[in-house]
C-alpha cells in the first residue's frame, strides 16, 4: 500500500494525516527508530532505578491522584482562590476560553509593553495554542531558551516528545543548525561544545530582552504562587531578569496548597527524567519588590478542558502533570516517535488528550494508536488509566462514524457488525465457523498456513502468516470426547 507522506511533520491536529499514515516516515527510517529507542532506554532505566529505591512510590502515586482529583472536583473554587491570592500579591489574572483568546491576550500585553522581542521558557501550553507563529506573524521576535527548543526553533524542526522534544535530532544535525544560525564557523559536534554555543548565544538575550513568557507546572491556590520545574537554568533567567513575565497555564494546573508540592515534586522528576529532583525548581508569588519581574500576568486557559472535566471517565486526563513517563514506556511511541501523533502532545497522553482538546472533531485515529498494553497506566505518577480512556474514546469515535453513510460498507464496520450478530447466537457462531473453514481453504497453503489474504486481512498477512483453521473446533471435539467417555 502506498500513502502520500508529508515531507515535514504536521503537528496541527486539524490537518495532520491519520496516525497509521503519519507513522510511516519513522517506520521507514531505522536510524531514527534507533535514536528514539535509545533515548527511551536511557530515561526508562534511570526512572526504574529511582522508583525501585522509593519505598513509598505507590503511596505517592495514590496521593498524587487523590490530590489532582480533589482539585478537579473543586476546580471553580480553587481557581477563584488562586486568582484572589495572585492578584493580592500583585499579579494580573486573565481568563481565555480558547487558543485564539489566549494568543490575543498575550499580544495585547506585549503591545502595551511595546515589546519587540520575548524570551520563552519551554511550555507545552504555549505550544498547544501555537503562540510562536502567531507572535512572529505579528512582528514579535520570539526566542526559545530551552536547549532542545532552540534546536527546534533554529532548525525549523517539530517537537517529538514533551520533555526531550529534540530527541530525534542527532548531534551532527545540531552542529549544522547551530553553525548556520549562530554563524559559528568551526563548531564541533561534541554536546559539550554545542551546549556552550547555546549558552553564549542566549546570554545577551537574557540580559537585554525585557519580556518573558512561560508555562506553569503548578499554580498554588492558597498563596497565588506559580511553580516552574526545569533543568538548565534558562527558566530561572527568564523568571528573574526581565521586567515583565507572562505565564500561560491550563486551568487544571492548580494545587490546593503549597504543601501539595511535596507529592508532586517527588514524583515529577523521577517520572520525567529519572532524577531524584530536577536541577532547578522556581516558585514565585505575584511580584516581589526588588526581585524579578515587576509586572506579572497569568492567563488561565480553558481550550476544551472544561468539556473534558464534565465527563466521568475522561476527567482523569486532566490529572496529567506532563512528565512523559507514558510515552517513555510506550511500545508504540518507541517505534513511531512523536511526530506520528500530529499534535504537540504525543504518546499515550497525547492519544487521549489531543482528540478531547479537539472535542472529538479531529484526531479520531489517535485513540486507536495503542495496543492497550497498559504500560502507560503502570508508570503514570497520577494513575491515569489511559487504556480505559482510550477505549471510551474509541466508543465515541465508533458511535460517531457508524452513523455515517459512507462507513456502511467499510470493511471494518461491516465486519464488526457481522461478528456482533454471529456471536449473539451459538448456532450462528457455529455455522460461521463451518463457513469460515470452507472459505479459508482457498487461501490455505499445503503447509496448512495462510500466507496471503485479501482486503483487510492483507494488513495481517503482509508481515505475518496465519495458521489455517483446524478441521475440528473445540466444541465439536468436546461433544465427541464426552460421548466416548460415556
Amino acid at each position, binding site marked *: 500500500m502506498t500513502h502520500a507522506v508529508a515531507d515535514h511533520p504536521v503537528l496541527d491536529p486539524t490537518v495532520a494525516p491519520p*496516525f*497509521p499514515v503519519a*507513522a*510511516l516516515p519513522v*517506520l521507514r527510517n531505522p536510524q531514527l527508530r534507533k535514536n528514539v529507542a535509545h533515548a527511551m532506554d536511557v530515561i526508562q532505566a534511570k526512572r526504574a532505578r529511582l522508583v525501585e529505591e522509593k519505598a513509598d512510590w505507590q503511596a505517592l502515586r495514590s496521593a498524587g491522584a487523590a490530590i489532582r482529583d480533589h482539585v478537579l472536583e473543586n476546580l471553580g473554587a480553587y481557581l477563584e482562590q488562586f486568582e484572589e491570592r495572585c492578584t493580592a500579591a500583585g499579579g494580573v489574572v486573565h481568563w481565555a476560553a480558547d487558543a485564539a483568546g489566549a494568543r490575543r491576550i498575550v499580544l495585547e500585553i506585549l503591545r502595551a509593553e511595546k515589546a519587540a522581542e520575548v524570551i520563552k521558557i519551554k511550555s507545552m501550553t504555549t505550544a498547544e495554542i501555537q503562540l510562536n507563529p502567531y507572535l512572529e506573524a505579528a512582528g514579535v521576535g520570539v526566542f526559545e531558551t530551552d536547549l532542545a527548543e532552540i534546536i527546534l526553533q533554529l532548525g525549523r524542526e517539530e517537537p517529538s516528545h514533551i520533555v526531550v522534544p529534540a530527541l530525534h535530532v542527532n548531534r551532527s544535525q545540531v552542529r549544522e543548525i547551530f553553525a548556520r544560525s549562530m554563524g559559528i564557523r568551526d563548531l564541533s559536534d561534541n554536546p559539550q561544545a554545542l551546549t556552550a554555543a547555546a549558552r553564549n548565544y542566549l546570554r545577551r538575550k537574557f540580559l537585554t530582552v525585557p519580556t518573558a513568557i512561560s508555562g506553569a507546572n503548578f499554580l498554588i491556590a492558597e498563596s497565588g504562587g506559580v511553580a516552574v520545574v526545569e533543568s538548565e537554568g534558562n527558566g530561572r533567567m527568564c523568571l528573574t531578569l526581565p521586567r515583565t513575565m507572562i505565564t500561560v497555564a491550563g486551568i487544571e494546573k492548580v494545587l490546593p496548597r503549597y504543601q501539595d508540592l511535596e507529592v508532586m515534586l517527588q514524583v515529577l522528576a523521577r517520572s520525567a527524567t529519572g532524577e531524584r529532583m530536577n536541577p532547578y525548581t522556581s516558585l514565585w508569588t505575584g511580584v516581589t519588590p526588588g526581585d524579578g519581574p515587576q509586572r506579572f500576568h497569568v492567563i488561565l486557559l480553558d481550550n476544551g478542558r472544561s468539556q473534558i472535566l464534565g465527563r466521568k*471517565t475522561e476527567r482523569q486526563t486532566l490529572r496529567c502533570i506532563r512528565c512523559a513517563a507514558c510515552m517513555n514506556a510506550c*511500545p*508504540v511511541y*518507541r*517505534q*513511531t516517535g512523536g511526530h506520528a501523533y500530529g499534535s504537540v502532545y504525543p504518546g499515550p497522553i497525547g492519544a487521549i488528550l489531543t482528540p478531547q482538546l479537539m472535542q472529538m472533531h479531529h484526531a479520531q485515529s489517535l*485513540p*486507536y*494508536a*495503542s*495496543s*492497550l*498494553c*497498559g*504500560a502507560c*497506566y*503502570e508508570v503514570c505518577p497520577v494513575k491515569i488509566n489511559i487504556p*480505559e480512556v482510550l*477505549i471510551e474514546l*474509541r*466508543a465515541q*469515535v*465508533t*458511535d460517531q462514524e*457508524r452513523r455515517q453513510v459512507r462507513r456502511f460498507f467499510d470493511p*471494518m464496520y461491516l465486519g*464488526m*457488525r457481522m*461478528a*456482533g450478530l454471529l*456471536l*449473539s447466537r*451459538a448456532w450462528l*457462531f457455529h455455522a460461521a*465457523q463451518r463457513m469460515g473453514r470452507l472459505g479459508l481453504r482457498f487461501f490455505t497453503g499445503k503447509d496448512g498456513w495462510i*500466507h496471503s489474504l485479501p482486503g*483487510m*486481512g492483507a*494488513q*495481517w498477512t*503482509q*508481515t*505475518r*502468516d*496465519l*495458521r489455517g*483453521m*483446524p478441521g*475440528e*473446533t*473445540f*466444541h465439536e*471435539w*468436546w461433544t465427541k*470426547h464426552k460421548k466416548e467417555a460415556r
Partner: protein
Amino acid sequence: MRASLFITCYNDTLFPETGRAVVTLLERLGVGLEFRPQQTCCGQMHANTGFRTEAFSQARRFVRMYQDAETVVIPSSSCVAMIRDQYPGLFEELGDETLRRQLAALVLRVHELSEFLIDVLGVEDVGAYFPHRVTYHASCHGLRSLHLADRPARLLAKVRGIDLVPLPNLDRCCGFGGTFSVKNGEVSSAMLAVKLQDVASTCAEFCTALDNSCLMHLGGAMHRQYAGMRTIHMAEILASTESAPAEALK
C-alpha cells in the same frame, strides 16, 4: 471440585488443541469439567474497538450463562481481563442493576488458568513432562491487569525436563492488540519485529504464553520468517506427560 470451561471464541475456532490440553490437565488433577455449548465470546474485540452495543450484548450473554456456575476457568488472560476490568463499566453504562449484581457475585469465581491452578487448586507441580527449551512471554493483560506475577514461572519450573530460558524485555508488548494489528498493521509489525528479536535471542524451541492471541501474532511471524521456533500455549506444556506428549510434538 467442579469447573465450567469458557474456552473463548478464538480458541474454539483456531486453537482447539489448547482446549483439549486444558481438559486433559484439569481432569488429571481431578477437576470435574463441564462445557456449556451455547458459549461464544466475552466481547473483548468489540469493546476494545469501540463497538459498545455489541460488547454489551456479549457481556450480558456471558453473565447470564455462567451465573450458576461453581467456577469458570478461562485459558486466555485478556478475556479474563475483559470480564474483570470492562464488564462493570459496561453494565453501569447500560444502567442494568441486576446484571451488575450478578456480575459482582460471579466475577470472584472466574479464573484464568494459572490462577485456577495455583490459587484455587493449590498446585504448582501438575505432573507435566516437557523436555524442551522454552521461553515464557508474559501477555500484557496477564502481567498488568491480572497481575499473574510469578504464577506462570512457578508452574513451569515444576515441569520435568524443561529448559526454561528467561525472555529479555519481558514486560514489552508484542504488538498484537486485537484490531490494532490490522488498523495499525505497520506499527504492530514493527513492534512484533522487536519482540521476535528478543524471543530469537533465547534460542528456545518454544515460546509459550497464557494467551493464544499473542502467540498467534508471534507464531505467524515465526512461520513467515522460518524462525525455527514455534509457539505453544502453556496449557499444552502443563498437560504434556511422558506417555501423552503435547500434540505439538507429534
